[in-house]
């Protein structure tokens, strides 16, 4: 799992207070300051995003993948649990575009089914963990004092425990069967919010001193309302990026777990489980491995490209495009 550590953004880890994200205002109206033809913020962001070809391609690929996962199984001649007794371990052919497995299942149908679950896991984990991170981080920073200390301590604690082993233990001992993947989603989410919560906290610390937040406070607005109405919307660019990148992270984490048998449990299947199964025969029957692996890489790559494009588009400091003084 330390292989995966490399994907985590720099944080000097426990207890140190290095705030990595430059909290520079994401709200300045882009480069077009005081121009006559004022571009609205939304149009400006869209324009900057569209300039990033990679990100635009990412959006296209995602739409395609979602269609594949949702519509694919309906139109495919093979269901993922169909067994073709005439074709065991057959390479790609007209009947089976991506070949078959040793038990005679259609690799394409399996991949679509796995993709469906992986997408679901990625989206759910990202959604839950970003929500938790946003709430914990912003409340901790806004209230300060004990709220903040306790939250930071919990964050540190979760960083000290290697989450991989804990998830593994709980999945091994947890309930098996159809809905066991929901437990996996919760477990993945439970450990993936911590670093984002720290970033949210440090951003909130700077946003909370902004004058419009003070203004809201001094007009008598209650604290939770201040956070929800004024703070969270103004760090939403970070949250959007975080959630986007979180999707890829969750899918990769599930793959790692699946490799050791701690991922989605049969009869369910995910891209991770398919890759893990395929890996054992990868050198001799590469198609079983390559189909789900490529789909997974394409999916994570495109979602990360979208995240990158969003970062460039939402962050006025990045110099994608012209600059006015």
């Amino acid at each position: 799992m330390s292989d995966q550590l490399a994907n985590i953004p720099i944080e000097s880890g426990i207890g140190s207070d290095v705030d990595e994200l430059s909290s520079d205002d994401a709200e300045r109206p882009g480069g077009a300051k005081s121009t006559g033809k004022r571009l609205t913020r939304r149009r400006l962001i869209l324009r900057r995003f569209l300039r990033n070809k990679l990100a635009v391609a990412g959006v296209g690929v995602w739409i395609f993948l979602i269609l594949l996962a949702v519509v694919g199984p309906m139109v495919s001649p093979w269901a993922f649990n169909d067994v073709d007794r005439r074709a065991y371990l057959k390479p790609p052919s007209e009947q089976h575009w991506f070949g078959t497995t040793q038990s005679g299942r259609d690799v394409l149908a399996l991949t679509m089914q796995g993709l469906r679950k992986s997408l679901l896991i990625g989206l759910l984990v990202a959604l839950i963990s970003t929500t938790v991170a946003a709430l914990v981080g912003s409340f901790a920073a806004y209230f300060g004092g004990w709220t903040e200390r306790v939250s930071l301590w919990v964050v540190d604690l979760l960083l000290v425990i290697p989450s991989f082993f804990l998830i593994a233990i709980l999945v091994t001992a947890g309930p098996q069967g159809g809905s066991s993947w929901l437990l996996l989603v919760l477990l993945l989410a439970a450990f993936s919010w911590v670093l984002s919560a720290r970033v949210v906290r440090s951003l909130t610390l700077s946003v909370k001193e902004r004058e419009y937040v003070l203004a809201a406070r001094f007009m008598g607005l209650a604290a939770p309302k201040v956070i929800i109405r004024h703070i969270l919307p103004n760090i939403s660019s970070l949250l959007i990026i975080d959630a986007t990148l979180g999707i890829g992270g969750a899918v990769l984490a599930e793959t790692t777990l699946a490799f050791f048998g701690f991922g989605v449990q049969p009869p369910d299947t995910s891209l991770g489980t398919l890759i893990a199964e395929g890996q054992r025969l990868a050198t001799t029957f590469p198609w079983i491995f390559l189909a789900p692996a490529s789909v997974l890489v394409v999916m994570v790559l495109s979602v990360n490209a979208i995240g990158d494009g969003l970062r460039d588009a939402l962050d006025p400091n990045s110099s994608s495009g012209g600059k006015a003084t």
Partner: protein
Amino acid sequence: MGKYLLRRLLNYAILLFVAVTLTYFLAATQLNPRGLFEVRNPPLDPASIEATLLQYNLSDRVPVHERWWTWFTGVLQGDWGYTVDGGHVNDEIKRRMWVSLRLVTVGSILGIVLGVALGAWTATRQYRASDRAATVGSLLILATPVLVIATVLTILATKFNQASGIRLFEFTGETGERGTYPLAALVDRGQHLLLPTIALTLIGIASYSRIQRNLMLDTLGADYVRTARAKGLRKQKAVMKHALRTALIPTGTYFAFSVATLFTGATITEQIFTFHGMGIYGVQSIQQQNVHGTVAVTAFAGVCTLTGAVLADVMVAILDPRVRLS
């Protein structure tokens, strides 16, 4: 300062204690070593099973807090407990941590050095072809699970060995058959390390170059780089001396942090290339219902993380004068 450091260490000790205790309770209640005996054929005598479990403090019939206390008093004396078949956890860890270190050191260092260089270079060439190529390459690697990278490398290496007729790449374990020429042992180890090192280096380059590029982009636009140019430094030199130096602070910190975690290994790489390291020990412990092994690996990883955090703080103090003085 000393007092402050002491408080900090105390806090770490508490964190670690809570983390490890939680893990113990989790592992002790969720894992089931008794199950290992119950599936044996021919069936074993329940009394002798119980005796064995009791002997190793693994019986689920003893209340968990009592087991914990026995285990904890052992840990205080440096004894991390035994497996059901009598293996001593201490021995495993002592052996395996060095295996992990041997596996990941070269790859990690190459990854960070090359990654930082690539990131700094591409930042100065933002949105040019070379930058875009590096970005696409990094994103591709980061989007690929280690498992897939390692497997693809294995497939490619097999092809290479077949095509060239030399066994350049070795696939399993740390050592294998070796010749009798001088330094043969070293060459043999090198051959076994080649593939995992390539895998780890690639991942390191991809992630560090992304991080370093972003850090550099922040400092490139900084006013002090403009000042350096206004002094008469050429662009390249102003960037190297002023922007890169400042942008290296967080990277240096992260490097210090990751040094300690080298011991915990790279689980998937270990599994695929059959290195008997720490990571895979953790996985096997869980798979084999080895309560004490699981907890020990967790604790070991926690210690490494916290040591890394301390090292990172020390590194910041060394690199950043703003922190050094206050």
